[in-house]
């Protein structure tokens, strides 16, 4: 196994070492989601998206002071988290896009994690 990433098994049974990392994005601004998804597709990065809620939003819903009807507002929390396992070079392209092309106010928080082992990942 590569020291820098996980192994990927090809369909013909041979293994190819690729430098895979996990990309985690916390997207707090819903209007930046479309740009991010488009960029991920352009760079060939797949992933899993889950709806999330910030701590402040949780406190607002649990401890309203004046705005008790806010819990009925017909919209999702607006926050999403994206998890993706992809080659390092693709992830770097994605991060370069986020830093270079997106407004500072709309940027998600992004982290990459090195992987020791991967199972179940298919092309």
């Amino acid at each position, binding site marked *: 196994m590569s020291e820098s990433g996980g192994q990927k098994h090809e369909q013909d049974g041979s293994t190819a070492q690729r430098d895979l990392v996990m990309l985690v994005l916390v997207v707090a601004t819903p209007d930046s989601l479309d740009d991010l998804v488009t960029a991920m597709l352009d760079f060939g990065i797949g992933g899993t998206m889950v709806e999330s809620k910030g701590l*402040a939003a949780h406190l607002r819903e649990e401890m*309203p*002071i004046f*705005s008790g*009807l806010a819990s009925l507002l017909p919209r999702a929390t607006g926050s999403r988290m994206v998890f993706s396992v992809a080659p390092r070079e693709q992830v770097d392209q994605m991060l370069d896009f986020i830093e270079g092309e997106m407004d500072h106010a709309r940027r998600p928080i992004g982290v990459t994690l090195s992987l020791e082992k991967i199972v179940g990942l298919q092309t």
Partner: protein
Amino acid sequence: MDLFLSITVLVALALIATSRRLYTARRSRFASLLISGGWPAVLVGVALGPHGGVVVTEETLTFASPLVVLVLGWVGIMVGLQARLEILRRIPRPHFTLVVGDIIFTIIGIGSIAAIGLAWWTSGEVNAAILITPWALLVASALGWSMETRSLRDESTPHDQSTELFLRVPSALASIAAIVLFGLLELIGTSSNSTGVQTLALHSSALHLGAIVALAVVLGVTGRFLLTRAGRSRANQLTVFLGLVTFVGGLSTELSSSPLFGATLAGFVLGNIATNDVLRFERFVVEAEHMIGVIVFLLAGLTADFHLTLIGMTLAAALVFVRIGLKLTLMRWAAVRQRRMAHSLTPVLSHPTVIRQSPIAVALALSLALVEPSVFHRRLLGIVLIVGVAADLASLLLWRLSRRVAPGSGGEAT
């Protein structure tokens, strides 16, 4: 020397507040209830204010009036923005029924006590028309209850969101009703005072009301346009919003009306003609809720006068006891009605959060002290704060009693 002492006290309070021991103690139900009620901020305000450490003098408070207008205007717009027709249509009928019941019970019960108490407090020396505004304040501040249910939630039972919504939504509606009720009656009462004739001045009240409604409509429409023009820039939107809030609050004050009332109307108009940009900005407005809440309570502590006579304290005590009886009776009435509709709300009966005073009461009392600054109105603010603290403590006591009677099933939100 006084300044040195005050600073020493503040530093000591800060050290205590950030100590590990207090952090642990703060996790107790008692402490979390008081903190969620905003009472630490009130305490700090009292400690700093003209009746405490005199770090903030009466003169400074006068100069801080625009800050009070801004904060109250923010609260008003925040409340009004929620009163969108699309939201109100989604609220089930039983919630509205509960609010109507609360209004009727409160006007009859609290209204009677308030009328007797105010007449006794002023020794019957003032005309009834002058007491309209204080009476309206005491009645409006008794409407609804605290929307925060977390501090009295029982961890041993599953979290029942439907019951929590049944507690939270009617209280939010009652807050809107309280602002409107107080705003309308304050107009009548203020106009009666200003004419110098001790009778109801309905004609001038109607004119003032028309002016405030027109102001709200104009600012709502203008606000929509400006917030849309501000685009997605948070800084631009905030600038526009602060301008709107201050303008509607300030003009309402000049028209001798509560800034809460004018701002709520403006928020209602804005919310119902909102674009996506405005709705997006609403999140930011609501996100600042806790900070604004702390400021409201801090200003209330600074402004309140607790030099109450025995009559004033008796009035406060009577309001607390009547409040407890009324709210519990209201919940029992609501539960009986709901059983007819096959929606069991038995757990609500044992949830004493309904005894807790709504935070909007403090904002209303603060607005009265702002619009008509007088010792009497500051003492009324003091009464509202005392009722709030006492009601919070009573709710905690009842919660503990209900748990002893029925451990695991009593006193929870589920």
